């Protein structure tokens, strides 16, 4: 696995503007970074990333099946009790899933290790499915990479295909797309998902999460971004959300989720996987598996070998918030955030590989249960965050 220097396209900003990629720079700092790219062999991609991704996903599904059948585990996974039946029904009905991204520690030699599963609201889907694909088209055309360079990235093809499949379940419905207000990145990501659904022939519409309303029957409605409540709003039957289940289950409209017949992407059972309690559960069910890191619930901290370094993570944190890396009593690294008050898990520390001055994290995508592509992030610290740069890759 090599990291090679490259040159930014002269018209990069113009291209980004043309394609509406408005978050290529965030808070004034570069996010999409094509001054370098990673190079893999096909064997590395297939044997070290793709195959383990498929296997890990299957193991995760087994975890879901185990958890839904146990009240004790549902509680441990912090699913509010009012939602146990809702989540169980979603699993029993085999409600279809669209996508997820698992994060792996990998530096060119296997086995890759699972850090976590972003099964509910994975981000960087646009950068992965389209933007790095376009980068390769241009890079190959201008000789920046070896001729016939490929990329592990059929994400857009698979998303569109999956949307076509999902359309069969809802042939006459509008699919709504929702995200929270005031986030350029989320709006861009959701726009891309909407574009993919449109390619599949689905009729789509957008609504902000905050503008979702209810009618007298408790059905969800789509409303414009304004103060007044309209007399006539469309009912939302089918909706994709870039917003976490764990928040929705605790917010004011949570009870309506239980009452009405709205179909959600991602489905509710995915909330069991997008939850770091998954990690100690996997270790318990598949101890010693080569692609897993040792992990325990904090209440079982006595099982952690004090000679090893451990990472303490809140169950629901995201974007690398509130992580603590500890060896015995010594704090090696930590990050800020709002999730400190939650229950925590402990995971064995496995250092991200260092390339130059940066630590590198592999994101491995699935559409439904099929491996679909790879994204790469770099950070100057061991904890990958929202601002970590996105780097493209090739297969040679």
């Amino acid at each position, binding site marked *: 696995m090599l990291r090679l220097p490259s040159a930014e396209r002269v018209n990069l900003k*113009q291209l980004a503007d*043309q*394609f509406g990629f408005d978050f290529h720079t*965030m808070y004034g700092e570069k996010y999409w970074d094509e001054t370098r790219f990673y190079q893999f062999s096909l064997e590395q991609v297939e044997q070290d990333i793709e195959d383990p991704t498929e296997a890990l996903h299957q193991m995760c599904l087994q975890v879901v099946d185990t958890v839904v059948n146990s009240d004790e585990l549902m509680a441990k996974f912090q699913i509010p009790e009012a939602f146990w039946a809702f989540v169980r029904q979603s699993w029993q009905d085999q409600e279809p899933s669209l996508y997820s991204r698992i994060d792996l520690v990998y530096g060119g030699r296997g086995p890759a290790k699972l850090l976590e599963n972003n099964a509910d*609201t*994975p*981000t*960087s889907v646009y950068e992965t499915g*389209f933007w790095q*694909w376009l980068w390769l*088209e241009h890079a190959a055309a201008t000789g920046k990479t070896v001729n016939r360079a*490929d*990329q*592990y990235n*059929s994400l*857009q*093809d*698979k998303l569109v295909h999956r949307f076509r499949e999902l359309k069969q379940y809802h*042939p*006459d*419905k*509008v699919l709504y797309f929702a995200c*929270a*207000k*005031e*986030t*350029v*990145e*989320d709006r861009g990501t959701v726009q891309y998902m909407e*574009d993919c659904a449109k390619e599949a022939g689905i009729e789509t519409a957008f609504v*902000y*999460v*905050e*503008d*979702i*309303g*209810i*009618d007298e029957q408790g*059905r969800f*409605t789509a*409303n414009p971004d304004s103060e007044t409540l309209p*007399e*006539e*709003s*469309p*009912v939302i*039957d089918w909706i994709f959300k870039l*917003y*976490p289940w764990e*928040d929705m289950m*605790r*917010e*004011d*409209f949570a009870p309506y989720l239980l009452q009405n017949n709205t179909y959600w992407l991602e489905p509710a059972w995915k909330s069991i996987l997008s939850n770091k309690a998954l990690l100690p559960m996997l270790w318990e069910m598949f101890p010693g598996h080569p692609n897993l890191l040792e992990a325990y619930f904090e209440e079982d901290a006595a099982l952690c070998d004090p000679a090893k370094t451990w990472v303490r993570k809140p169950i629901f944190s*995201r*974007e690398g918030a509130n992580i603590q890396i500890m060896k015995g009593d010594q704090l090696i690294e930590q990050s800020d955030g*709002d999730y400190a008050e939650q229950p925590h898990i402990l995971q064995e520390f496995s250092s991200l590989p260092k390339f130059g001055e940066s630590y590198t994290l592999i994101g491995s995508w699935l559409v439904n249960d099929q491996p679909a*592509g790879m994204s790469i992030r770099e950070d100057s610290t061991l904890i990958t965050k929202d*601002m970590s740069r996105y780097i493209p890759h090739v*297969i040679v």
Partner: protein
Amino acid sequence: MKRSKTIQPSRLQKRETKLLPPGTLKPLFVATAVSTLALAGCSRQMTIEPTEVETFTSVNDCVASGKHTEQACNNAYHDAQVESQLYGPRFTSLADCETEFGSHQCTRYGQSGGGTGIIGPLIAGFVIAEVVDEIGDALNPRYRNYPVYRHKKRFNEDEYVFGDGTILGSTNRGSYRINTSGIEYGKAKSSFKTKPAVTTSVTKTVSKGGFGSSSSAKSSWGSGSRSSGWGG
């Protein structure tokens, strides 16, 4: 190949290309038979002029015309196939399709290999149309590739039509002048469309804002909007 095969970048374009300041681009001289163009530096608003196009029945046909590179011809052929599968005229029965397009002119796009399983006409050819509706296009020519179908007319000669039903012209002619901005790229015209209409119920909203409160609570650092979001 491990990467996506059916991406057409033009379909993900969100904004028109802006003209860079003079001097930052090599001047380009674009020679076409019919389009009136404004060259770099001209600030006049352009009207949309019709463009001359040819239909090509195959990649070889396209290359032999000498008007486009082999790459452009291959791309156009590929784009036309994809476009046809996604947005071509579709029918619930072969008989209905053949009534419009003639016997043996229809197919079920196969489900294996990623096809949609829909019944539609075979592609009769494809068109590469230069899109000229902006000053910037003089410097960076844009092309759209369309499939065309051969539509049977009962008392007249057959005509080529686009996927949305727009008529290109009689199949007897070699080239055509059309206004490509009139074609609904990616939309099947209702006279050919037979898929069920989308149904939406409408109701009175009694309350909103019951989701999303966590987001306002967590935007505590920094004033104004944060670019980062709710994903992980």
